[in-house]
């Protein structure tokens, strides 16, 4: 009886209880909270309080878009001041950049590594200004009738700014097959909150084509699958831009760091989600050092390719007839254009990752080149910066023209309506295009130019994936993971101490060898002593 009880005790304490502890441990480890669900009211559910088609003032034969603006402002008083205070109107804003102090920067005066800069190429670039006809320096920023209300508020999809007209729609004189004079009364009577394509007409096509610049903002978002974007998909909530880019009195939330510098007026995912949306400690803790985007946007350019590389230095080759030409890559994207040089496009791109605290530097027109590649808009942040998080970034690399003697980046004059005006895209003359571009921007030009490598940084925010497609742990927590270039901190799974690992493994091997030798000795001794 005692023997039985001893055996039972042995099974209990040496087997069953340890297994019970293991079972509880595994159960605790498997516990996972349910992700929180989000309830939001979308802007598309907004019911307009008035019917604009009933207003008499909108039933006139408008001769110009300016007349429409005047009609809008006759009811919507004060809105002009709101609009004229925004960066959408001014194309610049006061910022403070560490080391550079207070400067006023924006699309108006910044350099980039796409078409180098808008200023001086107004006919083409200022088509995306929310004004009417910013064709040169004479444009009156204080005239509220120069505001283009319709381009953002049109619900008919029939109002377009014409190519090459600095933001004006077609007139009787300029109308052609692609651009007709808008039906102003029809458009004016059908206005409302901006839809995706009101924003997209500029923000999708920046840089001269769909998805050229952002990589995560393109026309596919108008109607896409969940895989492309869980928020904007028509298989799901079909959210519009303004559902996240919430707007108070024409001040639209959101920052684009190719033209911004300050950590203010930004959009956070926790506008709708919480800061602990996973209800799971391990995952939620990552929010301390990771932007949501890092795990939730594993790839960008999911539907159409984006421009990753642009080498201006090869531009200007002409065919036998002296004309510019183009070549396409296997996917049908240009990989050479005489007017622009060589490109590399890519789709389903894995982002690069940078520490980013919401502030960015900018290479100003007054800056001189001190490092190569030139950083067009370096993102600030590091591991020890408690406000910085790891962010997915599209890096647009390229080679662009610079002034060798002044060591500055050049503003090119690229666009002109006609040949002979010195625009590179018409006349293919670097020197003239540089001189005219620099002149327009009141900058010195030595006449001595060459090409220099540069990088521009575009934090990725759109094309959020369904949760099943988010990054898995080992995408980063592994020896050659996605965060390989961020060396300023210890990342479990990626990092280790070489001396400790080598010594540890060495010690294990030595131990095994020693044990094997000892065991052999015992076997030999066993037979010897027999």
């Amino acid at each position: 009886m005692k023997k039985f009880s001893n055996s039972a005790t042995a099974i209990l304490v040496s087997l069953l209880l340890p297994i019970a502890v293991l079972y509880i441990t595994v159960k605790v480890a498997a516990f996972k909270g349910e992700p929180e669900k989000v309830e939001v009211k979308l802007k598309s559910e907004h019911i307009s309080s008035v019917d604009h088609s009933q207003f008499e003032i909108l039933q006139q034969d408008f001769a110009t878009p300016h007349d429409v603006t005047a009609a809008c402002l006759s009811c919507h008083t004060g809105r002009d001041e709101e609009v004229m205070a925004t960066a959408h109107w001014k194309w610049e804003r006061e910022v403070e950049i560490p080391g550079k102090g207070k400067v006023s920067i924006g699309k108006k005066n910044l350099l980039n590594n796409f078409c180098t800069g808008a200023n001086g190429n107004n006919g083409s670039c200022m088509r995306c200004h929310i004004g009417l006809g910013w064709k040169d320096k004479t444009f009156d920023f204080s005239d509220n009738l120069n505001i283009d209300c319709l381009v953002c508020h049109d619900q008919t999809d029939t109002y377009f700014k014409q190519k090459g007209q600095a933001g004006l729609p077609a007139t009787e004189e300029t109308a052609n097959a692609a651009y007709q004079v808008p039906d102003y009364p029809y458009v004016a009577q059908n206005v409302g909150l901006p839809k995706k394509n009101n924003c997209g007409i500029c923000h999708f096509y920046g840089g001269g084509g769909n998805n050229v610049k952002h990589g995560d903002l393109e026309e596919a978002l108008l109607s896409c699958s969940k895989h492309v974007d869980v928020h904007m998909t028509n298989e799901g909530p079909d959210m519009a831009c303004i559902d996240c880019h919430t707007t108070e009195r024409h001040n639209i939330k959101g920052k684009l760091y190719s033209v911004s510098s300050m950590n203010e007026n930004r959009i956070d995912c926790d506008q709708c989600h919480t800061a602990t949306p996973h209800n799971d400690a391990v995952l939620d803790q990552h929010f301390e050092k990771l932007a949501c985007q890092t795990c939730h946007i594993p790839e960008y350019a999911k539907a159409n390719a984006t421009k990753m590389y642009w080498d201006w230095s090869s531009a200007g080759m002409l065919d036998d007839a002296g004309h510019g030409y183009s070549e396409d890559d296997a996917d049908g994207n240009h990989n050479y254009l005489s007017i622009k040089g060589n490109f590399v496009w890519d789709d389903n791109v894995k982002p690069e990752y940078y520490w980013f605290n919401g502030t960015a530097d900018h290479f100003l027109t007054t800056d001189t080149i001190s490092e190569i590649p030139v950083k067009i808009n370096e993102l600030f942040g590091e591991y020890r910066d408690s406000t910085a998080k790891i962010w997915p970034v599209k890096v647009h690399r390229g080679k662009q023209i610079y002034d060798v003697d002044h060591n500055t980046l050049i503003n090119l004059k690229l666009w002109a309506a006609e040949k002979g005006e010195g625009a590179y895209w018409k006349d293919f003359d670097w020197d003239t295009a540089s001189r005219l571009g620099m002149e327009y921007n009141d900058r010195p030009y030595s006449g001595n130019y060459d090409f220099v490598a540069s990088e521009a940084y575009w934090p990725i925010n759109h094309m959020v994936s369904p949760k099943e497609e988010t990054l898995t742990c080992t995408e980063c927590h592994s020896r050659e993971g996605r965060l390989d270039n961020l060396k300023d901190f210890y990342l479990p799974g990626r990092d280790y101490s070489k001396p400790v690992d080598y010594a540890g493994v060495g010690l294990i091997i030595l131990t095994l060898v020693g044990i094997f030798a000892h065991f052999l000795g015992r076997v030999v001794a066993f037979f010897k002593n027999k």
Partner: protein
Amino acid sequence: MEKVKIYSRFERFWHWTQMVLILLLGITGFEIHGSFEVFGFETSVRLHSASGWAFLVLTIFAAFWMIVTGQSRQFMPVRNNVKSQIMYYMSGIFKNEPHPVPKTAESKLNPLQRIVYFGLIILVFPVQLITGFLYLFFHYPEKPFALESLETVAVLHTLGAFLLVVFVIVHLYLITTGHTISSNLKAMITGYEDLEHSENK
């Protein structure tokens, strides 16, 4: 020879639970370290944290048990016979010589075991527990106070883990060097071992 009870119920429970937890911690820990793939990284992280907590609770019970029963004296290193124990493993064992320090219920561990276990209890386990929980709760700087980075903590934790692996390997082998090949193992399961009378010596 006499059947003597040398491991109490709690001691055996402690030992085998500790074995399970160290095995689990070792496998999941080295998976997190990037040495191999077993459960998947996320599962390993969750298992490692949970078994770390279990190990802490077990350690608190063990410490309590040691203090209350006075069994902590079993783990105090002694000066006598350290050399003869080393000589035993290096030569005596091959000549069928008896163990230099007989095992008794009052003194279960030989002088080398005392040193090694004392080292584990005083140094390796505390270092693993402290670095482990620092790892779990203080993995970011300035939260709530500045740890230079995770690196020091992580490297110490890895070092401790390697030492434990080596210990486990040696331990497994030395189990076979008892009175008979399986007598040590049997004792840890049943609590009883056939021991020579101390007066026989």
